[in-house]
Structure formats: structure tokens, C-alpha cells
């Protein structure tokens, strides 16, 4: 049985259209012009236990809105959500009991108090037994180094420290589903690394199901086997990252510097450019391997230097986004 099931989810907001100029502002004061904005149009997916799913899309695609609906904060306009078999619309409390949520752009920690106070409160809210609490704290301390920050007031923490605190707060009650909404936003390399390591660790040791929204494709590359790409409120891709790369960018480029000007052709490789002693080939991964191609060319002329270029994940995602919008 899937842990999370989303069927034909739709969310529309009424929003007041701001009108132009002073005249418009005055008009808006008395007779606001309302329009309906569709944040999420038709989204369906299902996620099995233990998966880490990258939920990505450009700004305003409806990622956060979906996460908020799945955690019972927003009510869908239509469609169905089941988390652990329970609908967050019907029973928010029952769903969030087994759910951890981190919003990268805000904190659930108490701003004015030491970090430990927030943990103590959550321990009581979720009714976490003492042994489980200390076990979880010890496990998280190892990766997130909580001991060094637990006595600092939250407002004095750096963004990276705060995010570590927020992650720990979301995991204190050992939830089996974790929603991470841009957990690495604005973090430095070290902090990102710690957070990715933590996500990996809990997924491996506890089989925690994780949905991760992010704009950092490093997160995706390191953590997610499966990605769901949405744009304008609909799913445009859902599958493994490798599959997506194979489909959108099945080619590689081989840049070869010869000692002299050469023009060597191969039936499986297209010559993209040939300037001076440098030749750039493009070939399909499934038609010929890079090694075979190099060996063939090397047999014909002496090679000085080679470089193999792969389509970057950024390019792939960009193609996926624009592909979705031109359809």
C-alpha cells in the first residue's frame, strides 16, 4: 500500500487583483476585482514506503501548495489525499502525528527561547517516551551536532544551525513520513552537506519516506532516485532521474584535441565542430561507448587531450520545464 496517495488534486485561490494607478487603488478599496488563481490544477502521484522523492518545478509551480495540502494546512478545492491511509482534510491531527515537516523559509522553533525548549515542547506535544527521545537526540546529535547549539536562543543561530534545529525538531517523534520544503535554501556547502547526510541516514536506517522540494539540483542528484516535476500545477514528469536523463539528453559530447588538424568520422558519432586541431563529437550513449569511440579515433591519429561532456542536470531540468510549458 502506498504511504502517500494524491489523486486529481486541485487548489484554487481567490485573489484580489491590484489595479493600476491611484485611481485603480481607490477603486480597489471599494470594489475589489477578484480573480481565481489556480495554484495546483491536476496532480496525481503515489509514493511507496522508504522512497525519497524530489518534488521539483519552477517558482510558482505549486510545489509548496501541494506540500501544504498534504500536511493538512490548506484544504484542496477538489481531489483526494491519503497519507498513511488517512485524509488530512478529514483528520489533520491524525495525519500530522506521524508526519515531520520542515519549511526552509520559516521555522517552527521558538524564536526567543533556547533551542532545547522547542525540543522539550515537541516531546510533550507528540508524547515521545523518554527512551525514544534520548535515543533520537543522540542519533541526530551525531550528524547535526546539536549539543553545541541546544542552549543558544534560536534567534542567535545562523541559518545553517537553525535548519539543523528545524530538521531535528521534525524528526523528534520518529515520523514515518517527512516533508522537506526547500531544506537547503540559502545554506553554505558544509551545512548542505550535513543536511543531505542526515536525510540519507534517516532514510536508510528508518525507512522514512521523504518528499523533498528544492531548487538545488545537487540535492536531487545526491538524494533522489525518483523525481516528480511539476509546472503550472500539473505533473510533467514522474520517474527515475536516470531515465529522465536518458530520455531528455541521451547524448554525450567528446572533445578531442589532436596534435594536427584532423577530420576523422565515425558512423555513430556526429561531428559538431571541427576547428583547428580540436574536434567535438556528439554520440548517443546507447549506440557507442566513449571508450570505443576514443579507441577508434586514437587508432587513426595521435590524441593530445580529451574531455567528455555530459548534459548537466540543470540543462535537463530546464528542458523538462520548458517541454512541459510548450505542450
Amino acid at each position: 500500500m502506498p504511504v502517500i496517495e494524491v489523486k486529481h488534486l486541485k487548489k484554487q485561490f481567490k485573489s484580489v487583483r491590484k489595479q493600476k494607478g491611484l485611481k485603480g487603488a481607490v477603486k480597489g478599496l471599494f470594489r475589489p476585482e477578484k480573480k481565481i488563481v489556480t495554484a495546483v490544477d491536476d496532480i496525481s502521484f503515489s509514493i511507496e514506503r522508504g522512497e525519497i522523492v524530489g518534488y521539483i518545478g519552477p517558482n510558482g509551480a505549486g510545489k509548496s501548495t501541494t506540500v501544504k495540502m498534504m500536511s493538512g494546512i490548506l484544504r484542496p478545492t477538489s481531489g483526494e489525499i491519503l497519507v498513511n491511509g488517512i485524509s488530512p482534510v478529514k483528520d489533520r491531527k491524525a495525519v500530522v502525528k506521524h508526519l515531520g515537516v520542515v519549511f526552509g523559509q520559516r521555522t517552527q522553533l521558538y524564536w526567543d527561547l533556547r533551542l532545547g525548549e522547542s525540543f522539550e515542547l515537541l516531546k510533550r506535544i507528540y508524547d515521545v517516551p523518554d527512551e525514544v527521545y534520548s535515543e533520537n537526540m543522540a542519533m541526530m546529535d551525531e550528524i547535526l551536532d546539536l549539543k553545541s547549539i541546544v542552549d543558544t536562543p534560536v534567534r542567535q543561530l545562523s541559518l545553517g544551525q537553525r535548519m539543523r534545529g528545524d530538521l531535528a525538531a521534525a524528526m523528534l517523534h520518529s515520523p514515518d513520513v517527512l516533508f522537506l520544503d526547500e531544506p537547503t535554501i540559502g545554506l553554505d556547502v558544509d551545512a548542505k552537506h550535513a543536511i543531505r547526510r542526515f536525510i540519507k541516514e534517516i532514510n536508510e536506517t528508518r525507512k522514512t519516506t521523504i518528499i523533498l522540494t528544492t531548487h538545488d539540483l545537487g540535492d536531487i542528484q545526491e538524494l533522489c532516485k525518483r523525481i516528480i516535476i511539476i509546472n503550472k500545477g500539473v505533473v510533467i514528469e514522474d520517474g527515475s532521474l536516470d531515465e529522465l536523463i536518458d530520455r531528455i539528453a541521451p547524448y554525450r559530447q567528446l572533445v578531442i584535441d589532436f596534435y594536427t588538424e584532423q577530420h576523422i568520422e565515425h558512423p555513430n558519432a556526429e561531428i559538431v565542430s571541427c576547428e583547428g586541431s580540436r574536434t567535438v563529437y556528439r554520440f548517443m550513449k546507447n549506440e557507442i561507448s566513449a571508450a570505443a569511440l576514443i579507441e577508434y579515433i586514437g587508432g587513426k591519429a595521435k590524441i593530445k587531450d580529451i574531455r567528455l561532456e555530459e548534459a548537466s542536470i540543470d540543462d535537463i531540468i530546464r528542458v523538462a520545464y520548458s517541454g512541459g510549458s510548450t505542450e
Partner: protein
Amino acid sequence: MKAYIYVAKMRIQTMMAYRVHVWTFLIMQCLLMAAVGFFWRAVYGGTEAAHGVSGDMMITYTVVSMLMSSLYYMGVEDRIADAVKSGSIATDMIKPINLFTLYFAEDIGNIIFNLFFSTIPMFIVALIIFGLPVPASTEHFWLFLASFVLGYGINWTFSATFALLAFSAIDLGPVFSIKYHFVNMLSGSIIPLWFFPEWLRNALYFLPFVYMYQEPLSIYIGKYTPEECLIKLGIQAVWFAGLMVVFAFAQNRATRRVLVQGG
């Protein structure tokens, strides 16, 4: 329950972090209390009694009213408005607790904090300037306490219902401040209703405000016999129950329409 007690405790700790705010608020309240007290002393001058209330009773009324208002601190309004405006309502809603019980627990924390850092210091200042604000009798004092608790219930439920407006309109501007002054005026917290024109006074008895301040205070200074007091308590209880029903209905509707600002 453990969690809500901890919330109240954390609220007290949070308030402690804002010392300047605490002291300035205290000074402001003491000044207001002294001003209103001296105002009544001047108004009464040589007059024995007006509307069956003597000058001393009126000063007692004022002092107790100010002490009450320091305990009637309605954090729930700003709490909900801020949570909706900043979008932090999202982090309240990811916890398996009732939102409004959470806000109520925070206000209990506010009361305990204010008791020590506002009510008691104000009481001491009042003691020095005006002497002890003596209740009409011990019996009246206990009846007042019950009436005070019901008054708090009415006040909190009314404020919480009012604060639900924040769920549908993102920026309420000075609405809460307008409401605050309205309630102050119509509840008799500064000027008792018996000084109001008769038509207005009669009308106000059909609104819940008088049951927040005026009626508990009238019980304290002995304007009613103990039997009359019990009737007043009964009316308060009915108002409280009625407002609870309205609140339960309104909060159900409001939380369905929650909007979360930002990313």
C-alpha cells in the same frame, strides 16, 4: 495537557525576554490608573454619592478595573493576526494539537506573567496612592472572583472570534486597536454605565461587554445584593456559553479558508 502547560511556561519565558516592553507597559498602566483615580476624586469633590456609589467606591472600582485589565490581556488577537500575516500559521498547524487550545495556553502564560509583573506591582502602587481597594464584603469578594473568571471567558472567546477575521482578510490594520477602545468604552471599564444616557445603557445590557468589566466590578463594590450577584453570574454564564457556540462555528469555517502567505 503536559504540552499545553509547557506552552504556558514557554510563554512566560518569552515575555521575560522583553523587559523594556514589560516596564514601559507597567508605567503606562500605573499612570492611567492614577489619572482616572484622581479624576474621580475631583469629580466627586464634596459629593457624597452619585447613582448610589460614593467617591471611595468609585476609586475602588477604578483600581480593581485596572488590575483586571492587566489580567485580561488578550494575546490571542495579535497571535492569530501575526500567524496569518507572516504565514507562520503553517508551523502551528503541522502539530497534532488544537490551534485555539494552543493560543489559550499561551494566554494563560500571559496571565501568570502579568500577575507578577503587572498586577501585583500595580496593586502596590494603588495601595500607596489610594489605599486598599476593599470589597463590599468577603462574600462579595468570592462572588467577584467567579464573575471575574466568567468575564475572562467572555472576553477571550469574543476576542478569539474577532481575531478569526484575520483568516479571511490578510491585513486588518488598526482593527484590533479600534475594537480594544470600543470594548473599553462599552464595558464600563473606565466610566461605569450608570453615567451613560439611559437609552444607551439599556442597549448595552444586550451586548456582552458589560459582563467583562462593569458587572464583576459592581459586584466587588457591593452595588448588588448576593442574590442579585448570582443572577448576574447566571447571565454571564449564558453569554459565555453562547459565545463559545459562535466561536466553535466560526473557527470551523475560518480554518477551512486558511491562506498561507509566502513560499
